């Protein structure tokens, strides 16, 4: 299930886009590179002309004063204005709307992702919608990677999967990201999502997947010798397929709670 790239992704060499907010990021990247291109080409033309025109063999006596007009000041002011527009018109509002604010939609899918060397634990709250308590003393690498407290009633229906993040399409997603050991960084390239997973903190991430398909979870922060292979999988499916997957996982974790490692 390859997701098609749009024109913006093609000319900028960006990955395909599959989230609601990502278009704005791509557009900003495009605008910024356009600005860079204009400035660079402008400089380059000036540079080449000057080197040609004022080489010593052609221009043997230098002009003490040089340039006496103020065009460069206008250009500098222009750059400052464009930067201000990008900052105030795009970047800050985007951050307030898409990164900072928590979703209020009651239909939101809430998931916990807990990173560790070198895998991603994905924790669904199950039918009750409440995450069971966890305790670092209960962690067992094989049977209980998150240290779920089985005596907590809320933990009974919780689902834990390794490196498999399944999400439904066109629904608000809220992921609480943390880490068990060192700093990792949770990168969903096609969703334009990247967030450091920081031990001791639980950081919310929000986005809406708008295309079904499979892609990768990458680790973007050096986390040790296995950093390069700390890869997970993201599957975005229809609501129905997502519910079916959850049901099958629930059954699996009940029948063989110590075998999901494989």
């Amino acid at each position: 299930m390859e997701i098609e790239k749009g024109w913006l992704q093609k000319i900028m060499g960006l990955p395909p886009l599959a989230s609601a907010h990502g278009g704005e990021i791509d557009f900003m990247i495009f605008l910024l590179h356009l600005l860079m291109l204009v400035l660079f080409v402008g400089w380059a033309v000036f540079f080449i002309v000057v080197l040609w025109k004022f080489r010593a063999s052609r221009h043997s006596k230098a002009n003490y004063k040089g340039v006496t007009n103020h065009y460069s000041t206008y250009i500098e002011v222009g750059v400052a204005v464009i930067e201000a527009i990008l900052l105030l018109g795009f970047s800050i509002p985007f951050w307030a709307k898409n990164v900072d604010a928590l979703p209020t939609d009651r239909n939101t899918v809430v998931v916990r992702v807990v990173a560790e060397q070198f895998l991603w634990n994905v924790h669904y709250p199950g039918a009750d919608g409440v995450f069971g308590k966890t305790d670092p003393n209960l962690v067992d690498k094989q049977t209980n990677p998150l240290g779920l407290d089985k005596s907590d009633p809320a933990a009974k229906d919780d689902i834990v999967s390794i490196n498999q993040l399944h999400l439904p399409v066109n629904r608000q997603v809220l992921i609480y990201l943390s880490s068990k050991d060192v700093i990792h960084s949770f990168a969903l390239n096609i969703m334009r999502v990247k967030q450091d997973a920081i031990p001791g903190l639980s950081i919310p991430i929000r986005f809406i997947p708008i295309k079904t398909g499979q892609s990768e979870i990458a680790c973007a922060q050096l986390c040790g010798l296995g950093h390069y292979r700390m890869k997970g999988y993201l599957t975005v499916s229809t609501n129905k397929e997502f519910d079916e997957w959850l049901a099958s996982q629930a059954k699996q974790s009940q029948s063989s709670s110590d075998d999901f490692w494989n």
Partner: protein
Amino acid sequence: MAHDSNHQDSHHPKHGFWRTYVFNTDHKMIALWYGITALCFLLFGFGLVMLMRWQLAYPEQPLPLIGKWFGPTRMPDGVMLPEFYNQLGAMHGTIMVFMGIVPLAVGAYGNFLIPLMIGAPDMAFPKINLASYWAFFIGGVVMLASFFVPGGAASSGWTSYTPLAVIATTGQTMWIIGMIFLITSSLLGAVNFIATIFQMRAPGLSFMKLPFFIWAQLVTAFLLLLAFPPLEAAGVMQLMDRVAHTSFFMPSGLVVSGEHLKISGGGSVLLWQHLFWFLAHPEVYVLILPAMGIISEIIANNTRKPLWGYKGMVYSIVILGLLSFIVWAHHMFITGMGTTISAFFQATTMIISIPSVVILTALFISLWGGSIRFNIPMLFALAFLPMFGIGGLTGLPLGLSSPDIQLHDTYYVIGHFHYIVAPGTIFALFAGIYYWFPKITGRKMNDLLGHLHFWPSLICMNLVFMPMMIQGLAGVSRRLYDGGASYAHAQGVLHLNVLMSHAAWVMAVFQIPFIINIFWSLYKGQKASDNPWESTTMEWATATPPPHGNFAFDPKVYRGPYEYSVPGATQDYTPQCQEKVI
């Protein structure tokens, strides 16, 4: 302002070998030691990345010929281990920044040129100066030795983020100890530079007559003095976390490989990042400002006209220095920052780009109306301008938090800062070596070898760093042992790794003409006069090589630093310390 005693001892005191070479407090000898040591470290740090580029281009294939020399703990049968790759990555960054560029740009250039350019007989505190060099040397030795402790050198990146660095092998302890020496060295150097520039300028040399290089060194010294102490403190705290099991940077509830860590906990992981970047962002300006200073001297000299907008450049560099203290958290946009804080750091980051643009634009405009000589120093200086331009421009999408979401921690970042420090700063350092070599040795460096060094280096630099931008846009993370080979999203840009590696190796080959040039020119180079480039600044007004005490006369300053092609003068340069215009 002026020093009272104008009497200088211009005779070489007779000392034995140790006092003449090793424990000589003369700023020029210390500068030479700094320069030689830093160039060796630069070459070594460059060598580390040559090895990494093999693994990136040909993941997990044995390195031919030399691969087996590295032993089973690093490269069994010539195949690099991820542990060793991470060591190379961390130490490449550390060595290039703290043991290569800073000691060369500040320790060597600053020490050699500041007293000469301001007409002083030596630095203000010659013994502190010597102590600064030896602290640097010891720090460097500790860093190199760390490759041979069990588990190898530090492997948590040059940033040494906690908790990874706290749970790392012994090499990390060595890294911290090495850093403490290197920081001490920079602090000693910084106080010395500041005192010298404030107190020992020749009569008549007011601040607005200082060569731009001196301004750059002065601002750099303040950055080092004010930004390094927090990292020194943070380094000691990390050392305590490692050896005394404190928890400054360690939160409660850490579970490493299934084991609940028995530590007191309660620390803050992000505290380290704040302390680190509070140094490391000003440090970026420590890397670039002296380079801008060198470039300015060379451009003024080889356009035969004054720098355009000297005052604007001076104000800009001072503002750059001040602002560089309040942009640090733009390295941390994706650590979970709210809108208010991210807005502040985005705004300061956009604002700091303006003085950088002003300086770069002033240098471009300085070329207009010149009579441009294309000698080797000038070629490197000219190449600096567009290359630094690319480095600066690619900082824009990283400095805005929203596009940074996609580009953070990808190869785009690596491409961006390498454009600034490699064809930017390192080209400036090369330019300076070709330019001031005649003052140090009395001989010019060879032009043909210079061309053979410059052109291939320029082409290869771009072939190495431009593809990184493409990989970064495609989303390839940095610091991957296999260069992204195991990720599907990297497949379309993976072939660029082979191109980049070959370009890097070709670039390495074309550094050989430079090394040969240094040694050949030392003995066989064309003899140079005291002022071979017909320059205006004061280091060229004294004898070559400058005697002990620097000046055989009492230098007085009559005019600004770049009085070239003064209207009405017959000679196209009018030195700062020459009384009459001729």
